[in-house]
Structures are given as structure tokens and as C-alpha cells.
């Protein structure tokens, strides 16, 4: 048991516990706070995978933007739903479905024909942030996906504004 493995196991336990709490607590605001803990756990996992740039993006984008946006939305719609009815009455059935899905994934994972890859160690080469920046703007590299992502964000911006503004004088 190396230090890295210990860190991974602790992080995984905290992340899974926070995830379970997120789906089981009644108060939605508390669920959002547990979700933030899950995001932190995933950031640590990225750190263990030595993807330093993604750690920063995970914290800035997921915790700094998405989680805060979700918290705002929860506060703006606070009286919309009674806390006792947050989960469907047939939650046991869906829990069984989720567990069966998990069992299916794990079965597929451990019967994977290229199983020896599962125990391989890290490939060499520390990730370089400058290399990511250059690759994103390189026509031979990932320029097209980068531009498509920016168009997607622009479309989301316009769509968000259009959906968000109040349409006065339309049918009520």
C-alpha cells in the first residue's frame, strides 16, 4: 500500500459517500453542498492522474460556476416543491435498477478482453499546460473541436438569454 493508493482510497470513499448523501438528503440545498464535495473529490482524482490543468478547470468551472449556478437556481425556486416529496415513491425500484447497471458495468469491466491493460502502470510524460494550449490552436491538432466548442458556448449564451428574459405581451 503506497501513499498514492491510500490517498486514492480515502478520496474515493469521501467522494462516494458524498454522492450517496447527495441523492438521499431531503433538503435540496444540502444536496448541492454534497455535490460540491463530490466535485472536490473528482478534482483530487484528476490530481492523482497528474492532469494538473483539469484540476484547475474542475475547481474553477464546476465548483466556481456550475455549483454556484445550481445553488442560485435552488434558492430562486425554494417554494416550488415540498421537501418531503423530493424523491419518487418508487425509489427502491430505481435503486435496484442502478445497482443492476453498476453490476453490468463491473462485469463488462472485468471480462474485458484487453484485461492486462487494467493493471498497467502510468505511461511516461508529465502533462504540460503549454502543450495543451498549443494543441488547441493548432490547425493540425484540435482547432476544429475548439472552435465548435466556442460556437456551442455562444449558442448556449444566446439560448440562455432568450429563455431567461421575460416575454412581455405574449399569451399567459
Amino acid at each position, binding site marked *: 500500500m503506497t501513499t498514492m493508493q491510500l490517498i486514492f482510497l480515502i478520496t474515493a470513499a469521501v467522494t462516494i459517500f458524498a454522492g450517496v448523501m447527495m441523492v438521499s438528503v431531503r433538503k435540496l440545498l444540502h444536496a448541492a453542498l454534497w455535490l460540491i464535495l463530490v466535485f472536490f473529490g473528482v478534482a483530487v*482524482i484528476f490530481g492523482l492522474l497528474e492532469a494538473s490543468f483539469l484540476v484547475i478547470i474542475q475547481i474553477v468551472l*464546476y465548483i466556481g*460556476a456550475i455549483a454556484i449556478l445550481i445553488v442560485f437556481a435552488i434558492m430562486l425556486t425554494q417554494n416550488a416543491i415540498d421537501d418531503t416529496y423530493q424523491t419518487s415513491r418508487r425509489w427502491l425500484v430505481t435503486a435496484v435498477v442502478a445497482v443492476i447497471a453498476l453490476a453490468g458495468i463491473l462485469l463488462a469491466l472485468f471480462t474485458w478482453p484487453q484485461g492486462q491493460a487494467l493493471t498497467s502502470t*502510468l505511461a511516461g510524460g508529465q502533462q504540460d499546460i503549454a502543450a495543451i494550449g498549443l494543441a488547441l490552436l493548432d490547425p493540425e491538432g484540435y482547432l476544429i473541436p475548439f472552435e465548435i466548442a466556442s460556437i*456551442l458556448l455562444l449558442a448556449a449564451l444566446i439560448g440562455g438569454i432568450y429563455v431567461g428574459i421575460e416575454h412581455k405581451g405574449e399569451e399567459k
Partner: protein
Amino acid sequence: MIPLYWFLVLSAILFCIGLYAVITRRNTIAILMGIELMLNAANINLIAFWRYLYAGSNLDGVIFALIVFAAAAAEVAVGLGLILSAYRSKETIVANDLDTLKG
């Protein structure tokens, strides 16, 4: 070192927790939170496979994860806008009650 399948098992568990949230929760915001959890699990998978198998040769995994981040941000912005808009006109954000499109 940490074996690759530890990461894959963790992401499978997180994905199924997110799946459970999406099916069970009645509040549309909670459903969106479940989707975020599933996207995060997928990202762990992408980065783990990339790091263990391809890190020496290319950056595909990181770029793919970055695109997923952009898609998640766009999805949350539009999704929450839609939820707030529905709340304003229907006074409800319960998924079962938002059935205007039902025939």
C-alpha cells in the same frame, strides 16, 4: 502505483449514483445535478484511460475532457434557464407536472 481499474470502478459507482439521482429525484434541478455527476464520472474514465495508455503520445484525452467541460457548462446554463422559465410560467419545477408536451 494505483491500478487503472480502481479509477474505472470509482467512475462506474459515481455514474450509477448519478443515474439513480436522475431516475429518482422529482425536482428538475436535482435531476440536473445527477447529470453533472454522470458527466464527471465519464471524465474520470476519459482521463484515466488517456493517462494510463496514451499519455506519452498525444493529448486526445485531455482535449476530450475539456470539450465535455464546455458541453456541461452550456447544458447547465440553458437547463437552469429553462427550469427558471418553467417555474415562472407554471409555478412548478416537479418533473411529473411539467407535461405540457404530453399528448
